[in-house]
C-alpha cells in the first residue's frame, strides 16, 4: 500500500507512536511485580477482539504551574472503552501504572467520567481496573475535582447499572472511595492495597509499624474490614472470576438477570438434603452443603466469603435463573448475627433488590451475638440494617427455616410478616422466642431452684418445650409459616414458589428515599 498521502502518514505515525509507548520494558516491569499490564488485563477481560478504545490519544492537561515532571504521553495513564464480555456489552477503564504511575490527572478523570456517562446511558455494567499511584500532585486541585466527578457519577449510577471495581495495584487516599462506592470490589492478593493513609504516614503520626499488606492488603479487606468482596491469588484468576460473576447479573435495573441453560444434573427431589442437618441441635454443619444441593450444579458463587462468615451470601441459579442466597452458617460462630454479618447481609440484599434478583434465605440462627463488645459497637443499629433491607426489598423473597429460628433473629431473617413471600420450614425447625435452655430457666426459675434434682427436671422441661413449643408445627398450624416441607423437596418447592412469584409487583409509595439506619 502506498502511504505517501500526507494525512495518512500522520495517522500512521501517531499509531506507531502509541504502540511504542507500551514498550516491552514497561511490561516487564509490571510482570516482575507479578502484575499484568493494563492492555493484558483488558484483553483477558473482554471477548477476543471486541474491545473498542476511546480517547486513546488524549494528552495530559497543561500544568497551571511548572512543578515536577509530566511525561507528554498519549492516553494520560488510563485505557477506557467498551466491548463484549460473554457476548454482553460492558464498559471498562483500566489505569496504567507504567505511565506516570497511573496517577489521576484532569484528562485521565475526564476519560473515566465520559465512559461512566456512556455506561449509564446505555444501561450496561461498568468495570474499573485500578492500579494507580493516586492524585497527580503536579495538577493540584484539578486532579482532586477529577476524583469528585468520578465519585458523583458512581453515586448517580448506583442501583441503575452494576458497577464493579477491581483493585490490581495501590489505591490510596481519595482513590479508595471510588471502589468503596461501587457495588462489588475484587482484589488481588499480595499486589493490591487500599488505605486512606499509607504506612509511612501511619508511622509518622502514630508511630505504628505496619506493612502495606498488613494495613490494607486484600486479605485484610476481605477478612476484617469487608471492603473487598472477592479476592484471588493472581490477576488472571481475578479477571476470570469477574467474568463468571458478571454472568449472574442483569445489565441494568430494568432488565431481568440473564438465564442460562440448566444441565438438569440436580434432581428437583434430592434426598441428600435429608442428611445434612444433624439430629443434635448443638452440632454444627456446613450450610453451603444445603445451598449446593439446592441450586443448579456448581452454580453457587459466594460473595464476601471471609467477612462476617457466620452469614453466607452469594449468587446461584435455579433452572438457569439467577437468585441471591442469604444463609446463616452454623459452622461459623454457631451462625449468629453479629455486626459484620448483619451489614454484609443488608448490603447484599439491597443489591439484589436493586437488580431484580429474587432472594432465597436459609435460616438457622440462634440469635444476635450477645456481649459488651457487640452492644457497645452498635449491634442494635447494625442489626437494624438487615431488618430494613429485608423488609424494604420488593423482589420475590422465600425463606426456608432449616433449624433454629429464635427471637429477634427469626423476625429479621425475612419472616413472613416482615414481607417474606413464602416461608417454608424443615421438620427439624425450632421456631420460638428463645432456645429451650433459656426459656426453661426463665419460666421455671422457682421450680428449678426448689427442686431436689434440678438437672433432671431441667432436662425434662427442655424436652417438653421442644415437643410443645420449639417446633415448626405450631407456626404451621397457625399460619405463621406456609408449609412444613420434606427437605428432599426443597428445590422443587422453591422453584415452583419462585415461578409463582414471577410477576410479583409491589406498589411503593413515592418518596425521596427511606431513612436506613446507616
Amino acid at each position, binding site marked *: 500500500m502506498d502511504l505517501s498521502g500526507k494525512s495518512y502518514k500522520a495517522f500512521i505515525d501517531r499509531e506507531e507512536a502509541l504502540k511504542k509507548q507500551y514498550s516491552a520494558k514497561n511490561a516487564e516491569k509490571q510482570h*516482575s*511485580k*507479578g502484575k*499484568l499490564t493494563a492492555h493484558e488485563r483488558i484483553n483477558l477481560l473482554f*471477548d*477476543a477482539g471486541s474491545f473498542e478504545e476511546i480517547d486513546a490519544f488524549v494528552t495530559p492537561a497543561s500544568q497551571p504551574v511548572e512543578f515536577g515532571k509530566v511525561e507528554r504521553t498519549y492516553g494520560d495513564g488510563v485505557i477506557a472503552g467498551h466491548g463484549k464480555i*460473554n457476548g454482553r456489552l460492558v464498559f471498562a477503564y483500566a489505569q496504567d501504572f507504567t505511565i506516570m504511575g497511573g496517577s489521576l490527572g484532569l484528562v485521565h478523570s475526564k476519560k473515566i467520567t465520559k465512559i461512566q456517562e456512556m455506561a449509564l446511558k446505555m444501561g450496561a455494567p461498568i468495570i474499573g481496573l485500578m492500579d494507580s499511584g493516586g492524585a497527580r500532585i503536579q495538577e493540584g486541585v484539578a486532579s482532586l475535582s477529577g476524583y469528585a466527578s468520578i465519585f458523583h457519577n458512581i453515586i448517580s449510577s448506583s442501583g441503575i447499572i452494576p458497577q464493579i471495581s477491581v483493585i490490581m495495584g495501590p489505591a490510596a487516599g481519595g482513590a479508595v472511595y471510588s471502589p468503596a462506592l461501587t457495588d462489588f470490589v475484587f482484589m488481588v492478593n*499480595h*499486589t493490591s492495597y487500599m488505605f486512606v493513609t499509607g504506612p509511612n504516614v501511619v508511622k509518622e503520626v502514630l508511630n505504628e509499624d505496619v*506493612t502495606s499488606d498488613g494495613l490494607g492488603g486484600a486479605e485484610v479487606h476481605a477478612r476484617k474490614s469487608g471492603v473487598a468482596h472477592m479476592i*484471588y*491469588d*493472581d*490477576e*488472571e*484468576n481475578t479477571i*476470570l*472470576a469477574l*467474568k*463468571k460473576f458478571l454472568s449472574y447479573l442483569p445489565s441494568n435495573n430494568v432488565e431481568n438477570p440473564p438465564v442460562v441453560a440448566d444441565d438438569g444434573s440436580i434432581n428437583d427431589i434430592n434426598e441428600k438434603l435429608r442428611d445434612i442437618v444433624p439430629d443434635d*441441635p*448443638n*452440632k*454444627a454443619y456446613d450450610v*453451603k452443603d444445603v445451598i*449446593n444441593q439446592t441450586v443448579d450444579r*456448581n452454580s453457587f*458463587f*459466594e460473595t464476601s*466469603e471471609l467477612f462476617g462468615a457466620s452469614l453466607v451470601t452469594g449468587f446461584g441459579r435455579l433452572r438457569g435463573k439467577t437468585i441471591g442466597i442469604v444463609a446463616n452458617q*452454623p*459452622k*461459623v*460462630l*454457631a*451462625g*449468629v448475627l453479629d455486626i459484620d454479618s448483619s451489614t454484609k447481609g443488608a448490603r447484599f440484599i439491597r443489591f439484589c433488590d436493586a437488580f431484580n434478583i429474587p432472594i432465597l434465605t436459609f435460616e438457622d440462627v*440462634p*440469635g444476635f*451475638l450477645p*456481649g459488651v*463488645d457487640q452492644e457497645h459497637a452498635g449491634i442494635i443499629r447494625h442489626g437494624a440494617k438487615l431488618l430494613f433491607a429485608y423488609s424494604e426489598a420488593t423482589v420475590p423473597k422465600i425463606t426456608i427455616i432449616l433449624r433454629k429460628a429464635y427471637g429477634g433473629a427469626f423476625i429479621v431473617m425475612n419472616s413472613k410478616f416482615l414481607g417474606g413471600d413464602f416461608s417454608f420450614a424443615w421438620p427439624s425447625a425450632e421456631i420460638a422466642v428463645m*432456645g429451650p*435452655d433459656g426459656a426453661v430457666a426463665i419460666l421455671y426459675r422457682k421450680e428449678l431452684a426448689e427442686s431436689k434434682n434440678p438437672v433432671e427436671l431441667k432436662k425434662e422441661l427442655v424436652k417438653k418445650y421442644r415437643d410443645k413449643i420449639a417446633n415448626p408445627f405450631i407456626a404451621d398450624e397457625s399460619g405463621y409459616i406456609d408449609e412444613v416441607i420434606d427437605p428432599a423437596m426443597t428445590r422443587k418447592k422453591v422453584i415452583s414458589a419462585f415461578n409463582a412469584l414471577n410477576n410479583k409487583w409491589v406498589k411503593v409509595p413515592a418518596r425521596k428515599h427511606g431513612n436506613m439506619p446507616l
Partner: protein
Amino acid sequence: MASDKLHIKKLYALSSENRKFSFSLPLKHSIRIGKRDYEVKLKADEKYGTYILWKNRKYPVEIIRSSQNKYEILFNDISYTFTVETPFSLQRMKVLKSSRSKIEQEIIKAPMPGKIIDVLVREGSTVLRGEPVVILEAMKMQNEILSPVNGTIVKVLAKPNTNVMKDDLLVEIKL
C-alpha cells in the same frame, strides 16, 4: 469461557501438600506426575456419576466445592484440595514468594467467648490448613476452630473444660 477452551492451554494443578501435576485443555487422556505420563480417562454415566477410568478400574470423583481456581474434590471417598494454575500465575507465585517477607508464626485466638470442649492437637504435632485444632462451645453450639496454615504446633494454651474470652490465645503454630 468457551473461546478459552478452543486453543490448547497448559495448566497445572497444585495440591495443598504442594505437589504439582500438569495437564492441558482440552483434556487429553494423560496426566503428568513428576516425570511420567499416566493414561487416565474421565467418564460419566447414570450409574456411577463422574468417574476416572485407570487401568480398567473406576474411581468415582465428585467436585464438592469450587471457587474460581480452588477446588475441593472427593476422589475414592477421600477429599483433596488443590488449585489450578496457569504458567503465568505459577511464575507470579515464585516472584511473590521470593519478595515477600516470610511469616513464621500463626496464633489462633478464640473468635468469641465460650468454653473449650476439646483440644485436638498436642505440642509438636503437625497440622494441615483446614484441620480442626480446638472445639469451642459457644452460643450452645460446638464450633470447630480450624488451622489457617500448614505447620507444627509449638504451644497449646487451651485446656478442655475451661472458659475463654474473645481473643484469648488458644494455639501457636510454627510454619
